[in-house]
């Protein structure tokens, strides 16, 4: 029979369905089952993690307050040309009176005042005093009467601000979070020097987290090495000591640091007693950066020790022996052969400690004073005290971005597959 070059044939199963289709069908059930198994966790994560983050992201740019409360004024302002330096026209002032009066009745106008006060101090008081005076204004001309009621309404900059913040979205929270603001004509400028705090705080947070990570590594490495090389019986005992902090309340640990470090605490008393420090020059070791660093290093140490230990445990002693037999002295053998193999543990411990430290909150709040607080303490402040959730959200999102950025750099430099958590 003459051979014919056959066209590439689609493989089929016995009943004639193409093999690929049939394979796909066979795998689909497995895929669905796998999906169903992770579904509860996915739902939980979505509800407790992704959704709140989404909400926070939205809040950091969301700006509907002014436009909903002043729903007459804001659309009219859109037609006003703020660059000429002229005040808006009569109709805007009439709308203002109506909006403020209605807002006062609904108890919403105060919020607008607070919101605008974030951008420019003084706005809150204008909105607080205006409603009572506006009551008397029952007919036009509105412009003069309104300016008479509060001369702030005669200031073009205030109108520019209302026009700008009448838009549904704003960048002003993010700008505030990096010590910037929009000036009257909408270009970005620095905050006045006394209001520049967040950039410094971010830098301080990063640097203190790095310092804490470094200290944890410095203290954790020898301990992990000891744990990994001692016989199991002894190392288990030591391990319990390392884990002990996990079983003690965070508050107890932090407050005991206060007892140890404060001016009339254990350390100062000892130093005074042995005459190293005079009684009127007791060292301030708490409510400052020292306090934060010491307490947080103590709290985060296990997060460094555990991954390091688990990596070191897997390094057989024969590597060091091989290095020695090849002529390397103990220090060199350690540096060239042992250390490089602990890098996955250092990476994992380092990134773990750093990321926890960067968002840490209770300890710096308790022992940090003013000099030792971190960015998270300000996020907390804006969430609970000043109620400026937009700014809190912007700070939080920047922090998140920062961590992701560092994570990517880490991945590029060390490689995330090199990380070993246990």
């Amino acid at each position, binding site marked *: 029979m003459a051979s014919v070059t056959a066209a590439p044939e689609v493989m089929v199963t016995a009943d004639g369905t193409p093999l690929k289709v049939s394979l796909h069908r066979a795998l689909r059930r497995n895929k669905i089952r796998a999906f169903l198994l992770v579904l509860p966790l996915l739902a939980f994560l979505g509800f407790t993690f992704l959704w709140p983050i989404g909400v926070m992201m939205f809040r950091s740019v969301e700006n509907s307050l002014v436009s909903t409360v002043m729903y007459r004024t804001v659309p009219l302002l859109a037609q006003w040309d703020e660059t000429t330096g002229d005040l808006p026209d009569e109709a805007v002032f009439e709308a203002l009176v109506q909006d403020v009066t209605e807002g006062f009745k609904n108890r919403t106008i105060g919020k607008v005042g607070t919101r605008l006060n974030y951008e420019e101090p003084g706005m809150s008081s204008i909105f607080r005093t205006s409603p009572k005076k506006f009551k008397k204004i029952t007919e036009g001309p509105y412009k003069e009467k309104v300016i008479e009621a509060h001369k702030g309404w005669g200031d073009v900059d205030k109108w520019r601000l209302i026009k700008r913040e009448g838009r549904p979205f704003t960048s002003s929270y993010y700008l505030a979070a990096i010590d910037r603001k929009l000036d009257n004509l909408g270009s970005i400028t620095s905050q006045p020097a006394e209001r520049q705090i967040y950039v410094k705080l971010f830098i301080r947070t990063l640097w203190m987290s790095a310092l804490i990570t470094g200290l944890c590594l410095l203290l954790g490495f020898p301990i992990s090495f000891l744990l990994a090389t001692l016989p199991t019986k002894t190392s288990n005992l030591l391990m319990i000591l390392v884990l002990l902090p996990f079983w003690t309340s965070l508050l107890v640990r932090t407050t005991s640091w206060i007892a140890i470090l404060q001016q009339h605490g254990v350390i100062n008393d000892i130093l005074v007693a042995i005459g190293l420090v005079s009684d009127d020059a007791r060292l301030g070791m708490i409510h400052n950066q020292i306090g934060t660093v010491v307490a947080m290093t103590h709290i985060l140490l296990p997060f460094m020790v555990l991954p390091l230990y688990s990596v070191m445990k897997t390094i057989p002693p024969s590597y060091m022996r091989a290095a*020695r037999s*090849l*002529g390397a*002295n103990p220090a*060199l*053998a350690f540096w060239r052969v042992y250390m490089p193999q602990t*890098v996955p543990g250092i990476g994992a411990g380092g990134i773990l400690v750093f990321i926890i430290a960067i968002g840490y909150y209770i300890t710096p709040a308790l022992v940090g004073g003013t000099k030792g607080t971190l960015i998270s303490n300000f996020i907390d402040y804006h969430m609970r005290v000043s109620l400026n959730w937009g700014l809190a959200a912007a700070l939080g999102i920047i922090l998140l971005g920062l961590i992701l950025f560092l994570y990517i750099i880490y991945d590029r430099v060390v490689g995330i597959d090199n990380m070993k958590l246990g």
Partner: protein
Amino acid sequence: MSSEHSDYIVRFEEVQKSYDGVQLVVKNLNLDVSRGEFLTMLGPSGSGKTTCLMMLAGFETATHGEIYLDDVPINNVPPHKRGIGMVFQNYALFPHMTVAENLAFPLEVRNLGKSEIEAKVQRALDMVRLSEFGNRRPAQLSGGQQQRVAVARSLVFEPDLVLMDEPLGALDKNLREEMQYEIKHIHENLGVSMVYVTHDQSEALTMSNRIAVFDDGIIQQLSTPDDLYERPMNAFVASFIGENNKLNGRVVESNGELCTVEVDGAPIKALSVNHGGVGQGTTLSLRPERVTVGVEDDGSFPNVFSAKTEEIIYLGDHVRTRFSVCGHDDFIVKMPNAAGHIVLNEGESIKVGWHAEDCRALDA
């Protein structure tokens, strides 16, 4: 290898070792390793072979006694100053370095020049036929290739002495045999002294100049491979090396070189090697291939006994037959599958015979 040194590169002198202060793991070890020699430590698990090697390499200290390297006592010399090459059982190749970097490591710590290092590394790679693999990580090599890298690394800095602790233990049978020859050839070509640890007797017999048979922390016998096989000095060595028929009996007459041993009522003529004298118990050792089947009682063999065939196992090139002789039913005879060999049936009785010189009277 300068001539002003003695012929021995290593000397163990009355070395003892205990890990726990209760039990001696190595008991009074005396051992000399000649220059250029391939000496194997052979013994069952736990007999103290690795311990001896570790003391020599400097990772364990002798509890008592002295070890000399080139006639210098080395008990207080740290491992990295001993200049001994070593191959570990799991190879211990540094996983974060490439093959070439692994080989360069011992040269770098000796502060050699860059070009010299490169040349030596290349030569070492060529020696183990891995020239193409310099840039690979150890994890990207097969077991046999890793093993060759480990050998090359132990030799690249040109030590006079190389220690190997069961280097072939993790390889399959074919690869193991191939590597045995390769290591043997490297040894012959370079003229280094090697101390090799194994518990595989055929490996020991193939490779070594001399074998030290360890048991229970004591060297039972130290001889050449053929000596060990042909002339075992005690029952342990006889049964550990090769196959061996053991017959337990009592010495009834000792007459110079030869003696007569009564086994289950039958007198057997044997060679006196290591028995306690007339009246004492002894173990007779007889290799299965030294027994002739189907002999006549015509005086050509001093020992001729009737044997009952218990079991026949056909193994291709030879036939193993289990007989019942002199009250021992585990008496094995190997018969070569040559033309015209005797064909036996199970249950059949036949006469077997052996020479007195092939039957060694050892300790009980």
